[in-house]
């Protein structure tokens, strides 16, 4: 053994990220991950670049006519939905977390149920229920002996206000989840200190619990508003012109892809603002963590009138966001679904949807594993950055992603057919655009984040010494992944695939724009039936979407129930 420290050796050259990957034997994985990330990030970048596109005559026309309307409607919608989800989400979260009243335990998970409802489905259900020909107005007319709708005033469902109510009803769970998690994480000691210092339970809530939970609530609102910007079905049906309907109309109706992309780029600015809000809230949340001491929460027991009020308050969003529209769908499905089920159309739709969702789910998980594992093998800034970009699709509205997918694919198609014509004298036509593959690609861009987050969370729970153990016992990185990580991750992979599956089932705008001609899924068929005023027939496919959508809600409620720090952890 050499003696004490030797004379200083000259410092070795600083290795670049790539050289580091090569030395670790991870360059293959790094390259693969960068390739995947580039492919998935391409549409996002494509649309983003349109921010800098020169303005054309048509664009100036658009900007002076419809654009102000899009912006105003989108802003009103965000404002209204933002208010709605904060009131509904925060109050219900506080009531079920800190108070006990009859039914509060059930409401803890029942309040999540509206998440299973796509907003457009709820919009159809309420239109069917509340419009002039619907059962509610008919019953009113019968009861009061009115002959026509002109004799009374009834609020118009298909309006900006209606869209705000519908979206608040289905998006409040995002705030509910975040606020509830924040309340659960708050150390009871802080709340008790507030009580001892002379605050009543309500003032303690207002002055301590609420400010502490504010970053989490802001994060939930950001998510809800991203969903609001993403919505197409509701605003289209309610004839509220927003960015998404504008993009759709510019693309499908006017046949102006470049214009659609420019609108998409503008919409991305809104999303960017929300992303910044989300990130800032996360940063703030770290400083809002109080102490590490937890005790079971003091359950404020409500009795009599107070208990009834609390129960009613929590029942309202649950009932109007899930039970009532779900009931309407079921009624329609029973009334008109028979012919659909027997006619075989439903099964074609289900098979199409199932295939798309399964293929996308599996691919999304596979990509997420590649990205996550490459990052684990060699966490260079390059891989970190690209995987973040690739996972950004979830914040970006489906219509924008559709445009961002189709523009490069169309360019590729043109190049491809030119090549084929030159070489073989035969042009293949548009091979990629309008194919199922293009649709799967668009889904991957939008939902990769969903699977990526799941896989990342799973990988983070595997100790790095597992990797080292597998390697020293003779496994190469791929072997370690196959024999150690994948088996351990099985559960996380399954639920990640499931989440993507359900998202694909519900997805509407991207599917409408990218799908092959005459190819329908449950979601697009629900949409076209509703657009054709055949609401009752839309019941069966809509109900199918909702029922499958319940699965991730159940997973989520289980995960939340287990997540309280300091609570006994079940194996």
């Amino acid at each position, binding site marked *: 053994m050499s003696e004490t420290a030797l004379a200083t050796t000259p410092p070795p050259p600083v*290795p670049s990220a790539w050289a580091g990957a090569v030395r670790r034997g991870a360059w293959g994985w790094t390259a693969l991950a960068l390739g995947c990330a580039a492919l998935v990030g391409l549409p996002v970048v494509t649309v983003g670049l349109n921010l800098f596109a020169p303005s054309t005559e048509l664009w100036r026309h658009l900007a002076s006519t419809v654009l102000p309307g899009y912006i105003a409607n989108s802003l009103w919608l965000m404002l209204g939905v933002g208010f709605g989800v904060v009131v509904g989400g925060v109050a219900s979260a506080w009531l079920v977390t800190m108070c006990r009243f009859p039914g509060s335990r059930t409401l803890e998970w029942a309040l999540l149920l509206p998440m299973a409802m796509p907003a457009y489905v709820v919009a159809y259900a309420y239109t069917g229920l509340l419009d002039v020909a619907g059962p509610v107005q008919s019953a009113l007319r019968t009861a009061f002996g009115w002959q026509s709708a002109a004799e009374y005033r009834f609020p118009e469902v298909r309006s900006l206000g209606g869209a705000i109510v519908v979206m608040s009803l289905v998006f409040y769970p995002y705030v509910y989840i975040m606020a509830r998690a924040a309340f659960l994480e708050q150390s009871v000691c802080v709340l008790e200190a507030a009580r001892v210092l002379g605050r009543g339970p309500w003032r303690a809530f207002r002055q301590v619990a609420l400010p502490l939970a504010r970053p989490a609530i802001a994060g939930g609102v950001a998510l809800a508003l991203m969903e609001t910007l993403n919505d197409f079905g509701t605003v289209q049906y309610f004839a509220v012109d927003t960015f998404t309907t504008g993009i759709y109309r510019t693309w499908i109706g006017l046949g102006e892809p470049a214009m659609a992309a420019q609108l998409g780029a503008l919409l991305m600015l809104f999303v960017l603002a929300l992303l910044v809000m989300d990130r800032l809230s996360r940063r703030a949340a770290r400083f809002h963590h109080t102490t590490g001491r937890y005790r079971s929460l003091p359950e404020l027991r409500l009795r009599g009138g107070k208990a009834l009020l609390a129960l009613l308050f929590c029942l309202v969003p649950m009932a109007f966001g899930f039970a009532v529209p779900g009931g309407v769908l079921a009624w329609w499905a029973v009334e008109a679904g028979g012919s659909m089920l027997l006619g075989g159309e439903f099964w074609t739709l289900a098979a199409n949807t199932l295939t798309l969702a399964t293929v996308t789910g599996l691919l999304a998980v596979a990509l997420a594993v590649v990205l996550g594992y490459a990052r684990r093998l060699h966490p260079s800034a390059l891989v970190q950055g690209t995987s973040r970009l690739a996972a950004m699709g979830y914040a970006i509205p489906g219509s924008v992603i559709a445009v961002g997918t189709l523009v490069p694919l169309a360019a590729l198609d043109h190049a491809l057919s030119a090549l084929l014509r030159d070489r073989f004298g035969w042009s293949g036509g548009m091979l990629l655009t309008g194919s199922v593959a293009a649709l799967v690609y668009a889904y991957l861009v939008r939902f990769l984040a969903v699977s990526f987050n799941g896989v990342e969370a799973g990988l983070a729970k595997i100790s790095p010494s597992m990797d080292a153990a597998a390697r020293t016992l003779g496994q190469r990185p791929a072997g370690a992944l196959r024999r150690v990580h994948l088996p351990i991750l099985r559960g996380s992979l399954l639920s990640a695939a499931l989440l993507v599956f359900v998202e694909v089932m519900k997805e509407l705008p991207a599917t409408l724009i990218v799908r092959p001609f005459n190819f329908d899924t449950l979601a697009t068929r629900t949409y076209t039936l509703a657009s054709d005023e055949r609401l009752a027939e839309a019941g069966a496919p809509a109900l199918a979407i909702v029922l499958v959508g319940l699965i991730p809600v159940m997973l989520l409620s289980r995960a939340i129930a287990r997540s309280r720090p300091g609570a006994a952890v079940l194996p």
Partner: protein
Amino acid sequence: MSAPGARPPRLVLDRVSYRYGARTVVDAVSLDVGPGELVCMLGPSGCGKTTTLRIAAGLEPPMGGRVVLDGRPVAGDGAWLPPEARKMGYLFQDYALFPHLTVMENVAFGLDGLPSRDRAGRARAMLAQVGMGDYADAWPHQLSGGQQQRVALARALAPQPTVMLLDEPFSGLDRSLADQVRQDTLRLLRETGVATLMVTHDPEEAMSMADRIAVMRAGRVIQSGSPKELYDRPADPFVAGLFSQVNVLRGVVRDHMVATALGRFAAPGMGEGTAALVLVRPEALRPESDPAGSLRLESSRLLGPYLELRLSLGPSGPDGVAAETVIARLRRGPLPEVGQPMTSRVDGEGVFVFPDAGSDVPS
């Protein structure tokens, strides 16, 4: 440092370096481990010892220097052999048993090269050797910490590596259990004749297990040698204070000697007038009652098999400030009376004189 004519070392680290960003965590570390030998890297947490171990295993590529395994360069100078091709055993601090595999499957994990019948036989034999033969079908989470450690050891040894790397393998066990597991592990390593490089922050553990110890601090090996060499001839105050408490006295070199309240000590090779640090091990003091002595007994306590005496080096100052004290440790005898004057002889083997370069004696 291997004796001439000895068998060639299994593992050689030659001026190995590693940096995280701008911070050098391993700074030109050189080590070698011969067949059947146990070498221990000892140092406080963050001194770079675990990174050095990971470099030896191929889990981190060194940024400078070479790693030579069985005479073959495996890292540095353009050579690179990934960890899976090095066939070294690695025992992890958290054992890293695969939770989705049974004990048996864990042990057989590294035996891919063998036909399946031999794999089972070898894994079973290995489990029996660590006394876990009855647990072949158990799952890792059903085992206690000590049992998990033994399974991890069996798993690492099953492919019959020529070099074993142990990363704080006993730190997860409670003290009473650790001693037994340490002895069992040591016995097994000796039986297999494997060359072992071990990392620990526990000086006692290093003393009790290692043939040679390399003391590390801030990424460098500051001294290496047998436990006895390190204890008897520490290279600096840090090493002197590592294995036991030391009394620290300060003085100035005059006529090649340093005068202290405990007497004058030789300061070979130190310049006239330089500040010196005199370190005295508690067991090197031989105090006895002496009415003319300048020391005063402050307290005496019985600590199991020995006595610990606290002696002040002079009367309290006029302002009541307590004088400096030293600690002496002696074999059990009658407790002397507190407050009486004493003198002390000093056994030269337990005294070390260093230049006083600031206080880097571990407390």
